[in-house]
């Protein structure tokens, strides 16, 4: 197998895993799957591009500002589109349509504000997108950094769920009312998780920008691939999402190489459906037992 292809697959797969982790951070305490998550990632890339490329701020400052801006927007989303729906009925799925509506609003506002042209973003020094040869594959220092940062982030977030605050998040996911009785405020947790989920989305966007460019087109494509990684990995399972992200990245790369780039999405979609047909809760997920 072509090793260059593997490098591209793992880089893309890392980004998909990060998108999936953003979904999971939000999903765990709220049981809400944010349809605007792809657009939050896109917003992160656009803000990052604006601060870093257009305004010339240092990379870390630009990235931090982008994360703050997108986290604030995610919080606004939670306040106007999610909390009112969950207040009416915690089991209602009205948020599917309201978060989709928010996604349309974000995507079109960005389209009106920034225009359709993609913006190039340089990686932070000393990293570079220039490739060199390593074990027979062409790879750039930035690609290595993306892969390493992803693994570190996934392990870090998983470690957080082992702490006391992390367990509170999981308790709310399990039973909102019971958590309330133990002094956990689910509404505050839900706001916090949108804020953090927005921050992770923005970081994903900033990281993706040097590889994929910053453009409005990022939203829908990352929404679907991030979902594929989350679903195949098992919703809520970040380590699963990481492996699933690699799988999706590989399927894509192989489909592009064997068929044509136009068939990438179709191939990813077919593989995801096949996996869900055999294992409905993903490769590493488990069924939620409580129904009654």
């Amino acid at each position: 197998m072509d090793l260059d292809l593997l490098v591209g697959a793992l880089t893309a797969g890392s980004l998909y895993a990060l998108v999936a982790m953003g979904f999971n951070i939000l999903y765990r305490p709220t049981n809400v799957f944010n349809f605007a998550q792809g657009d939050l990632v896109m917003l992160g890339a656009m803000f990052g591009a604006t601060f870093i490329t257009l305004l010339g701020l240092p990379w870390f400052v630009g990235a931090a500002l982008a994360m703050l801006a997108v986290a604030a927007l995610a919080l606004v989303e939670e306040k106007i589109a999610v909390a009112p729906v969950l207040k009416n009925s915690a089991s209602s799925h009205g948020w599917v349509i309201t978060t989709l509506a928010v996604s349309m609003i974000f995507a079109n506002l960005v389209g009106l504000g920034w225009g359709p042209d993609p913006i190039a973003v340089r990686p932070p020094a000393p990293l570079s997108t220039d490739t060199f040869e390593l074990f027979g594959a062409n790879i750039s220092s930035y690609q290595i950094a993306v892969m390493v940062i992803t693994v570190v982030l996934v392990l870090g977030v998983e470690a957080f769920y082992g702490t006391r605050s992390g367990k509170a998040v999981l308790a709310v996911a399990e039973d909102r009312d019971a958590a309330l009785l133990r002094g956990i405020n689910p509404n505050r947790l839900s706001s916090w998780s949108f804020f953090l989920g927005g921050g992770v989305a923005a970081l994903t966007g900033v990281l993706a920008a040097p590889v994929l460019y910053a453009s409005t087109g990022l939203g829908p494509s990352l929404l679907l691939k991030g979902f594929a990684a989350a679903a195949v990995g098992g919703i809520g399972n970040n380590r699963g999402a990481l492996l699933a992200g690699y799988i999706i990245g590989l399927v894509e790369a192989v489909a592009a190489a064997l068929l044509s780039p136009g068939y990438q999405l179709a191939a990813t979609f077919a593989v995801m459906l096949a996996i869900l047909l055999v294992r409905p809760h993903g490769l590493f997920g488990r069924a939620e037992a409580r129904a009654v």
Partner: protein
Amino acid sequence: MGDAARALIGSPRTRPALLFALALALYLAPFAVGTEYRLFIATQMAAYVLVAIGLNLLNGYGGQVSLGHGALVAIGAYTVALAMVDHQWSFWPATLLAMVAAAAVGAVMALPAFRLSTWYFALITLGFAEVVGGLLTEWRELTHGFAGVVGIPKPGVLGHTLTSFDLYWLALSLNILALLGMANLLRSRFGRALVAVRDNPVAATAAGVALVRIKMMAFVVSAAMAGLAGALFAVQKTVVTPDDFTADFSIFFLLMVVLGGAGRLWGPVVGAVVFFLVPELLTALQSWRMLIYGVALLLLMLYAPHGLVGAIETGWKRLRTRLGLSNIPPAPSTAIARETVHPIAGAALSVRDVEKRFGGVSALAGVSLDVAAGTTHAIVGPNGSGKTTLLNMISGFYPIDGGAILIDGRSVVGMAPHRIARSGVGRTFQTPRMLPQLSVLDNALLGAFPAERQGAAAAALSLPRARREQMASLGDALRYLDFVGLADRAMEPAGELPHGQQRLAEIARALVGRPRLLLLDEPAAGLSLAELDRLGELIAAIGALGTTVVIVEHHLELVANICRSVTVLERGAVLASGTPAEVFSHEEVIAAYMGSHSSVGQAAS
């Protein structure tokens, strides 16, 4: 004037007369105002209405958000276009193929999603729309790529080629048929089951509804309608290109349904009409269009979840109230006399060493109990002793970790809960699982779902045998509502009943399924003293029908009065079992249940 208005608005004949007049006007309209352009627009609108009616079945009633109906229309349109242009098929068989193709491709896509949570379906359909959109340009050998398919001929009938007038009439007729069929389908067991799947899947399962099957039925119907609309779309436009079917196209149908009124029969029609009445506004704001759609979707979902039709309904009800007319429809009259309910052959229940663990916690550790056919048995015990868990295992809602459960000697271990329900196990829940928007009668009728045999086609066409079956179920439901004492509230929305009466209605729903084994989970919780007496009489009456009753209850007096045998659970194990008198004088039971100072016997006497 008030009297005249009251007579007009109150008359049951006003609506059909108005609808007939409307249909007639639409059929005759082309003679008066028909220009080629207007007919083109009207036919296109009719095709869209067809898609929206189908989507409303799935989304409005079934609660499944599809973001891929535009892609299903594309499959229908391309199937007809390619069959007619590349393979010289005639329109009619090509249309049939289009419907089958849209339904089949859609079903393959939807199958994995329906086994999971609602939002999986929304995302998978969204992905499906993207994939189909991509393939339309990419798969050039089949679809002709960017150029699309041109020169699609007009349909013909017996050598006569349909004019734009004919196409309009065809599309209009299809709309009317679709609405009639949909109204019939929604009135049948399928409509109730779909609403149950949307509002209370647990109640649907307990009534014997197979969730995945019913969702799939709704999806296949709505996909076939999208395929049919695609066929109309193709011959009307005479050319189809990938640009006709962008990702926004699917969102557009969803907005149509939400704007008009999701879960309202006329919602999609009203939504489509409004969309076609404001096209000028939207062309002027072309670049703002999707932004406006997004804002509209958000505001509608938050402030008008039942859309324009929902708002009109609210206003209509207010008008009727002001005129002194009741908003509760009269109960249907059935030809079947309110005969007494038939006896039921009860089933014996045998639970052997059943174990259940949640994570590391053992909820049931080897519980056994036997209930003879036709008797009433109580399970009592402190909170957390595993009573409800045991009911959930018997009815199949929780998988079993060890042991055996036999109903009339047949093992039910591993059976899906809706199958156990169908085999004659009815149940109620600690908090009544009602469908609050449906009437009490419709809630009770949900219990008749497994007993009815009619298919979706027979129901949509309202065939005589389907109607006969529906009348029989109606008679049953009214009879059991009478049996539990709710006959006079049958037509009220179930959500407006007080808690105690919702419990009774839930029992009536279980009885309509004629259960051989009935599981009642704390039926007396929160009842007043008078209601409690009535409940005792009711359970005794149910026992007298022959049904085996297993009741989880804290109220020991009730248990002592109506049960032949009792099992006491503590911390997931059987503490004692026997007749109420034996069990309630058992020392350990007294200690566990009441503290050692008082006697359960006194409380129960």
